[in-house]
């Protein structure tokens, strides 16, 4: 069994989830609490990766990360290497691919908090930032955890985007879903079956977790 591919998948999912939780929280806060003209346009733009075919996202990421794209050039200036076909490259792709799944549940959880609680925090002297840390986050843990689980599951399942941006370099960009695809291509069904089988308990356990979190957040 291709343990290396499974390891890359898990590493990718964990890094994606961790980075995205931190990045998405302020975006979700902004979307939940601010009003400005054109907000729905911005919101739709943030959720766009959910609606686009993964290969379309992959295509634009190749353009951006390639030697002529601004991301690729910036990366080359700092590291001297190429961003395409690296773990960092597929991590960036995976993050962009999963943004909607992080922002949406967090925004819903933040928006559900009663405004009066926030006003009370302000009256008690808390700045907006402190209110976010001391009141909003602890009262939306269910939504934050649901976002984390969704992002994690979505990242272990990513295929098209990663294949386009990362190719299939063992130990670097060859994730489990790509390993399954390649094994099937070479008629190696038993190898494909083993990796495929290992996904089922992981995904099932995480789905149970989401259900539990949703129930907890209702009570």
């Amino acid at each position, binding site marked *: 069994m291709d343990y290396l591919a499974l390891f890359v998948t898990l590493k990718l999912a964990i890094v994606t989830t961790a980075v995205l939780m931190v990045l998405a929280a302020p975006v979700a806060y902004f979307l939940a609490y601010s009003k400005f003209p054109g907000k729905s346009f911005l919101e739709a733009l943030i959720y766009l990766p959910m609606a686009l075919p993964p290969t379309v996202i992959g295509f634009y990421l190749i353009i951006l990360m390639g030697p002529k794209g601004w991301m690729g050039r910036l990366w080359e200036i700092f590291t001297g290497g190429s961003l395409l076909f690296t773990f960092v490259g597929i991590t960036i792709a995976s993050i962009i691919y999963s943004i909607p799944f992080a922002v949406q549940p967090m925004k819903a959880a933040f928006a559900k908090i009663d405004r*009066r609680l926030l006003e*009370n925090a*302000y*009256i*008690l002297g808390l700045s907006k930032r402190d209110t976010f840390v001391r009141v909003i986050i602890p*009262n939306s843990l269910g939504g934050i955890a649901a976002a984390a689980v969704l992002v994690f599951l979505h990242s272990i399942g990513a295929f098209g985007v990663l294949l386009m941006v990362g190719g299939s370099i063992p130990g670097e960009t060859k994730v489990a879903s790509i390993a399954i695809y390649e094994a099937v291509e070479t008629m190696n069904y038993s190898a494909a079956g083993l990796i495929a089988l290992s996904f089922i308990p992981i995904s099932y356990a995480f789905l149970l977790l989401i259900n539990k979190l949703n129930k907890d957040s209702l009570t």
Partner: protein
Amino acid sequence: MTISASFKRRLKYYDLDLSFTCATNKMMVMIGPSGGGKTTIIRMLAGLETPDEGQVIFGEEVWFDSTRRINVTPQKRRLGYVFQDYNLFPHLNLLDNAAFAAVDKKEVDELFELLKISHLRKRKPYMVSGGERQRCAICQALARHPRLLLLDEPFSALDVVTRRGLREELKSLKGRLSCPIIYVTHDINEALFLADEILSVVEGKNDVGWMQRTITREPGEGTTAKGAREPRLALVY
């Protein structure tokens, strides 16, 4: 310290326009029919809403002045504000709620003792009764050493007996506080029991005769008493 305010604000159905002052140790009760602008006034005092015109001056400090474009944030006004509900943070137990912004955490125990909720300190807000939650909300507000205490119908979600008990405790607590207190209610009996001064607010204006008219109105006289919750019944308690 004295709080004095005068403000104007356009609301949907009428214009709010009134002024008042309230001195330290005094409790001013703001009374009037629902929808008359009482909560809006309190929120403007707290800095949660902005008047169109006017001034709010606390002692020597200017909290709001529309001509000089001064508007001090709620954080810096250092006041206590007890709502009808929703003061307490659901994720914290009562003790942590009261100590949330306490100047001296040790004082919270004394306040709990005083308001008779010491035995509930480890409970979460949803595990205690509405009256106990409001006691805790008062502790939370007082532990911050507020310079002004705003109480917006703090007991109106409670049953009559609990309300009467808390009302009496609040009156005895008043002597220990050295700040102006503004209390909003639509219960005339509560107003008469608690107030040092009464401000009747009807459709955004100070209507001096409103209470008298409401108490003495003849049956069938019409709309003067609309919104005062069963005034005749209330006088029985």
